[in-house]
């Protein structure tokens, strides 16, 4: 196991290296440059060129890469061109929101997707199943911003139950009460993902319930509910676990639309805005971190398989 983990970390490092090169070349292919965005509409080309030179943006790409990679290895991701602050700080600032949002969203997904998926599987073929599956598909096909805008209109501007937007950190006054800011966004974000998990749960429940060992369990004389929970579900969740991991990773880095609608200071929005402003260090840093996140989650998913499924040998 230890050796396995070390091996995996080695492979991850290779992936990371490849990814960092891809990131770097990818980003520098994007036309436009941060300096003209920074200097604004009135700046003349000479001014732009001068500032580019002063900021080292006219060096050959590979030189820039080496400098960046060298610093990144020491944990220094550079400074944001736009914010003038260290990229690590920019990421750390977004991370709180993104992680909490993803966590709360995962709670919704688990609370809604899994039980409803189980229900649909148990009642397979009945109108309950059809209705629930239909609902899931519906949720999966509504654009997030639509849901988000309506949630704000109804629950924030209309009823005033929840704050409309923004998110003050829970560490800076307000405490856990600030989580209410994430309630509406997490619902908007959870809708399509819960639908996916629901469908996955249902499908794998059905798959597992056709397995021979379920018949064995039923022949033991234990209650049907126990068969479902202890035998079918436990095995069915194996298939859902990896979806969980990757949904979580995606929720952290890809909640751009939700973050935009709800004005949340999350990573997704940071990086999209950074692309629009060509804030290279931030884009590179965030992608690097999300790639790491993906690799870590990948590893965790595989390790959790080891815990959940004794057949998996590491």
């Amino acid at each position, binding site marked *: 196991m230890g050796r396995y983990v070390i091996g995996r970390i080695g492979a991850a490092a290779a992936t990371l290296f*490849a990814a960092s090169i891809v990131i770097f070349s990818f980003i520098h292919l994007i036309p436009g440059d941060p300096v003209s965005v920074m200097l604004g509409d009135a700046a003349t080309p000479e001014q732009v060129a001068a500032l580019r030179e002063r900021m080292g943006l006219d060096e050959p790409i590979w030189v820039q890469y080496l400098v960046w990679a060298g610093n990144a290895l020491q944990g220094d991701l550079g400074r944001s061109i736009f914010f003038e602050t260290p990229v690590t700080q920019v990421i750390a600032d977004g991370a709180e929101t993104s992680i909490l949002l993803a966590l709360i969203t995962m709670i919704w997904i688990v609370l809604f997707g899994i039980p409803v998926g189980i229900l649909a599987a148990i009642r397979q073929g009945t109108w309950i199943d059809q209705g629930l599956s239909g609902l899931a598909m519906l949720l999966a096909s*509504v*654009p997030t*911003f639509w849901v988000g805008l309506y949630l704000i209109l109804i629950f924030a501007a209309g009823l005033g139950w929840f704050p409309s937007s923004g998110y003050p950190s829970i560490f800076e006054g307000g405490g856990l009460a600030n989580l209410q800011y994430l309630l509406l966004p997490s619902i908007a974000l959870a809708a399509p993902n819960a639908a996916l998990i629901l469908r996955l749960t249902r499908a794998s429940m059905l798959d597992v319930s056709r397995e021979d060992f379920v018949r064995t369990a039923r022949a033991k004389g234990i209650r049907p509910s126990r068969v479902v929970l202890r035998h079918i579900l436990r095995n069915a969740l194996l298939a859902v676990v990896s979806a969980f991991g990757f949904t979580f990773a995606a929720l952290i*880095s890809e909640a*751009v639309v939700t973050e935009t609608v709800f004005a949340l200071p999350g990573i*997704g929005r940071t990086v999209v805005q950074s692309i629009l402003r060509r804030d290279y260090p931030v884009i590179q840093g965030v992608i690097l971190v999300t790639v790491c996140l993906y690799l870590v989650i990948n590893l965790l998913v595989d390790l959790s398989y080891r815990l959940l499924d004794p057949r998996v040998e590491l």
Partner: protein
Amino acid sequence: MLGYLRVWTRPVVSRPLAALAGLFLIVVLCCALFAPWIAPYPPDQIDPVNRLLPPDAAHLFGTDHYGRDTFSRAVYGARLALLIGVGVVSFALASGVPIGILSALYPMLGRVLMRMVDVLMSFPSLLLALGLIVILGQGVLNAILAIGLIYLTTTARIVYGVALRLRSEPYVEAARSMGAGTLWIVRRHILPNMVSPLLVQASFVFAFAQLGAAALDFLGLGAPPEIPSWGNMLAEERIYITRASWLLLWPGLMIVLTAFSLNVMGDVLRDRMDPRFREMMGK
């Protein structure tokens, strides 16, 4: 022949939901094909005096902030929806399938290719799309390419899994024992047996491509908005959510219903391909 047709129509007809979904998709297809005849106005006819009109007899779905007829735009929108959907699906399949199959058949190559897919997958997907669009410039084709790239990875992974399983199927082995080459095995054995998971994946990708395009539009980077697309209409008119909510309702409904119908049809197709289901329906 009739019997063959029945095999296809039966799973649809036996579920009212599926029948409705099928019907809706046919309507969408008709809209796309015959848009100029169905739409009462050109989709880009600007009429600022009559902007933001609520639905009435002259403008079934009302007018948008240019005074363009929302109904006509929704009808034309079907074209772009299909274009994006079909485009993304074709791209994802055309690139994901060979990658997946090659990786499964040649493990050495597979290790490299799947690593690369991993790298791609580890990038935030919307971001990848966004970056590509910025690099390539905005446009329908580029949006298709960008979204297609996201689904290339998932498709390649699925195909890889299936191909890995099919590769060790006894009938593939049997073909190999007769001296069949790789091309033969892929063409005659692997591809045909991949059809049903691919169909489900395709219907899923089709639906999500619409949402992806809508999200790109939302961020202002989708198709050039003078070509109407539903996602675009939705994103463009989203500030009218309170003032003229019908502007969002119709395109939103179209996206939802199309995605929904496709999902339903995807399910039907999968069931149709599932031998267990075939057994149940009788031979």
